[in-house]
């Protein structure tokens, strides 16, 4: 990560003005969006959109040709090119032919992508953005910080300053007054413009139609008042059929701004009459700029299903803290990272892709059903392949991949940490390591790892065996969680075994793009965990469960290690998450808990992998209730705590800022007990509470349940 980039993150985090409106918007977004989708089956809708857009992505060539033929038949001029420079030149040539001086534009990300404005301005043309947010950003000489809300990083005072300068009049920061200034000022530009430039939200091959969606009404004016209209359309906007407009139009406004529909939707099919009685000179530029290449990529083809609603920005716990000037280039946020890697260059996504904490929230909301975090991980992998890992990372992974060395080092660390340990916490680390403990205390490394403790727990003999996969945190820091898991399983009559050959699940390597390292971890663990014939492989760390159930297979597949796949699949079938298994056991009447006389209030934090990858969120709550707890839900219980594995080490300041929001939401419940199902979350939240001096006890669900075993 470049130091310049790290610096920009620090600045963004320290500037509350930058993300004030964005933060408020993102907090309200989920509720408002849910209201807008009332009565609509979102899963069915996005499945349909994904299917229609995936069809288009795999027939780009044919659809582009069909679109061009139909639009031409209706009288439009269609120009198709892969090269951004040719797009710029085409627009300039039209302007020259028309003897044009002034251009008005409605919002077009495609034109931002090719930096059209500066090009045309250098050629002496006056170019005015007319979307209010775009105009503000243009006046400020900046780029949009959000794909739908371009100026969300600016305050009304900033806008008042810009407008005052523009119209040479001192303006107050009264928003309706400022909007009216824009109306007056831009109205005369609309009326005097020679050319209107727009993008398009949808392009229909079957009819040659363009769909333009706006709230302000500027696209209607851009397409009506000047006699020439140039629409710049990325070819991923193509759909096959006129009826394909519907699902996109149903999702776009709801996902973008929680509206049922934007104020204006214009469907333009060929030239319509101008105000002087002539027909519109309508030019449609179908721009490729590596989209076809993307469509050929088996993984990234999916990204062409994007409808540019920006909901991945709105629900991202990182984006709302740093905004789009840090998290993105022309295109911002999660999908912006992916588009940057393609439309710009892989190298350009190097810093921003690191911002993704892999919490998976955006994937839940994406109306194009795109696995955005998965694709970002794939970018990370390709970056590592292209550029290699940093030396520090290489060093770390060399250790992690050598189980004996790794474990010996952890044992040594248990002794080495002594000067810093205080009541089970490491509160301060010296020198450059101090960032890690500035905002959270770290757990001390257990004097004896769980693998040693386990030997001292007598096991019942049973036909029904479960192998316990501890994962690093339980093995080396929170051995008590492991003990709780064993106690509960034993109570249900299950014999627990601890395969000694188990090692790190490989998640840190995988999330850093180091797939070769992760693959070796997978192989080692598969061998160790399948050594004995067990019914289940149980983990109390959802990240580890996801590794065992899904990622070992994914990693090995992507490296072409097909010989290892049958065993990986066998392990995946046996791997279960702790809460999920215990819920089954309770439902079968094999376990029960003591009910408290008065329910003990507790708030529950949903771990990212448990809720969104394993789809387990009701089970732990149900178990905790049965064990005598009253659940007091916190705001945004399923938003990441900022742990994200090695994210805390790579981007400690962002991790801490996310943590602070989580702590704030916990405090707001007024309860002093927290449960979570992931030892990583426990570490992050417990450490944050300790550092902040909160009298809050954070425990793993397994510990809470073990306390209440009947």
């Amino acid at each position, binding site marked *: 990560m470049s130091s310049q980039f790290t610096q920009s993150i620090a600045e963004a985090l320290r500037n509350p003005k930058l993300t004030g409106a964005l933060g408020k918007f993102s907090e309200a977004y989920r509720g408002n969006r849910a209201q807008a989708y009332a009565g609509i089956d979102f899963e069915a809708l996005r499945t349909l959109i994904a299917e229609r857009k995936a069809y288009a992505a795999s027939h780009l060539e044919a659809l582009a040709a069909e679109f061009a033929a139909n639009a031409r038949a209706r009288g439009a001029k269609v120009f198709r090119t892969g090269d951004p420079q040719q797009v710029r030149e085409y627009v300039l040539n039209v302007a020259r032919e028309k003897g044009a001086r002034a251009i008005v534009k409605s919002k077009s990300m495609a034109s931002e992508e090719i930096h059209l404005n500066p090009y045309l301005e250098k050629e002496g043309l006056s170019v005015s953005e007319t979307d209010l947010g775009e105009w503000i950003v243009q006046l400020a000489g900046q780029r949009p910080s959000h794909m739908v809300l371009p100026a969300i990083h600016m305050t009304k005072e900033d806008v008042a300053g810009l407008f005052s300068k523009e119209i040479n009049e001192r303006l107050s920061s009264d928003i309706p007054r400022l909007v009216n200034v824009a109306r007056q000022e831009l109205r005369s530009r609309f009326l005097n413009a020679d050319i209107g430039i727009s993008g398009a939200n949808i392009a229909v091959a079957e009819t040659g139609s363009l769909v333009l969606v706006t709230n302000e009404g500027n696209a209607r004016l851009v397409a009506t008042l000047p006699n020439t209209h140039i629409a710049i359309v990325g070819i991923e906007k193509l759909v096959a059929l006129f009826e394909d407009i519907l699902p996109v139009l149903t999702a776009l406004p709801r996902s973008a701004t929680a509206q049922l529909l934007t*104020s204006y939707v214009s469907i333009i099919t060929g030239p319509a009459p101008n105000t002087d009685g002539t027909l519109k000179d309508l030019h449609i530029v179908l721009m490729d700029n590596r989209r076809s290449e993307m469509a050929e990529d088996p993984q990234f083809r999916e990204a062409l299903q994007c409808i540019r609603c920006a909901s991945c920005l709105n629900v991202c716990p990182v984006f709302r803290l740093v905004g789009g000037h840090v998290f993105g280039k022309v295109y911002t946020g999660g999908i912006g990272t992916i588009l940057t890697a393609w439309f710009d260059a892989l190298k350009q996504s190097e810093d921003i892709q690191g911002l993704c904490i892999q919490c998976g929230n955006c994937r839940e909301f994406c109306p194009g059903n795109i696995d955005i975090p998965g694709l970002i991980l794939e970018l990370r992998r390709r970056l590592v392949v292209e550029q290699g890992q940093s030396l520090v990372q290489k060093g770390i992974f060399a250790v992690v991949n050598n189980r004996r060395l790794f474990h010996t080092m952890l044992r040594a660390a248990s002794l080495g940490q002594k000067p810093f340990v205080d009541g089970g916490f490491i509160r301060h680390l010296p020198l450059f390591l101090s960032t890690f403990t500035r905002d959270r205390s770290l757990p001390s490394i257990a004097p004896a790892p769980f693998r040693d403790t386990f030997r001292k727990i007598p096991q019942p003999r049973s036909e029904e065996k479960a192998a316990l996969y501890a994962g690093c945190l339980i093995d080396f820091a929170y051995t008590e969680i492991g003990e709780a898991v064993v106690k509960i399983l034993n109570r249900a009559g299950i014999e627990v075994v601890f395969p000694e050959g188990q090692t790190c699940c490989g998640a840190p390597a995988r999330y850093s793009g180091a797939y070769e390292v992760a693959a070796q971890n997978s192989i080692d663990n598969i061998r160790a965990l399948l050594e004995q014939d067990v019914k289940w492989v149980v983990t109390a760390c959802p990240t580890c469960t996801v590794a065992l159930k899904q990622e070992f297979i994914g990693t090995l597949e992507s490296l072409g290690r097909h010989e290892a796949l049958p065993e990986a699949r066998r392990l995946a079938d046996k791997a279960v998450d702790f809460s999920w298994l215990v819920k089954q056991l309770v439902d079968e009447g094999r376990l029960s808990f003591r009910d408290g006389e008065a329910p003990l209030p507790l708030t529950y934090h949903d771990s990212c992998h448990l809720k969104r990858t394993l789809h387990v969120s009701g089970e732990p709550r149900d178990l905790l209730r049965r064990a005598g707890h009253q659940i007091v839900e916190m705001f945004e219980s399923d938003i990441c705590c900022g742990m994200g594995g090695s994210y805390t080490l790579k981007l400690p300041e962002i991790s801490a800022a996310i943590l602070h929001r989580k702590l704030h939401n916990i405090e707001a419940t007024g309860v002093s007990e927290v449960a979570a199902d992931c030892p990583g979350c426990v570490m992050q939240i417990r450490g944050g509470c300790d550092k902040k001096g909160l009298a809050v006890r954070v425990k793993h669900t397994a510990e809470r349940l073990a306390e209440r075993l009947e």
Partner: protein
Amino acid sequence: MFEQFKTRAEAVSAEVHRFATRAQALDFILDFLRSEGIADQPGAYALWADGSFAAALDRKRLAAQVPGLRFEITRDLAAGARAGISQVDWAVAQTGTLLVDATAVEQRLVSSLPPIHIALAETGRILPDMAAGLARFDPGRCAFLSAITGPSRTADIERVLTIGVHGPKRLIIVFIDEAGEADHQ
């Protein structure tokens, strides 16, 4: 479906009225124009675009009744008008949306440049949803299809909703129960 339309349209700041007859609707419109100070002066006049309702009017008499009410439409006139009146083809209850074939440029001028847009619609032409709405249009015959849902709006400054940026600041929707000539075909 009218009630659903009204709820949805009012939720996005449109003003919705309903009249049994064309005569009552006309009275309302003329009263409204007078109350808005429509006059035969620059910036104060109103433009009425073609449509089956407008076609049946005695334009000379109306222009005499409300000075400043005009039926010829140009770009310059639209730019200086206080109100624009037009008839829409269909309404969509689910979203409070008006659908109009706006290929004729007059339709676009009166509904986008003046600060007030009065839209006439027949109550019998309310459709349940956008699927039904789009199905009524053949893009092969309609070069410019406009869907209008409430007045022009923006939230680009600090996410504060502000009505009336580039298009109309007010959208007055007048429903008429009595069917027009065109519907008796």
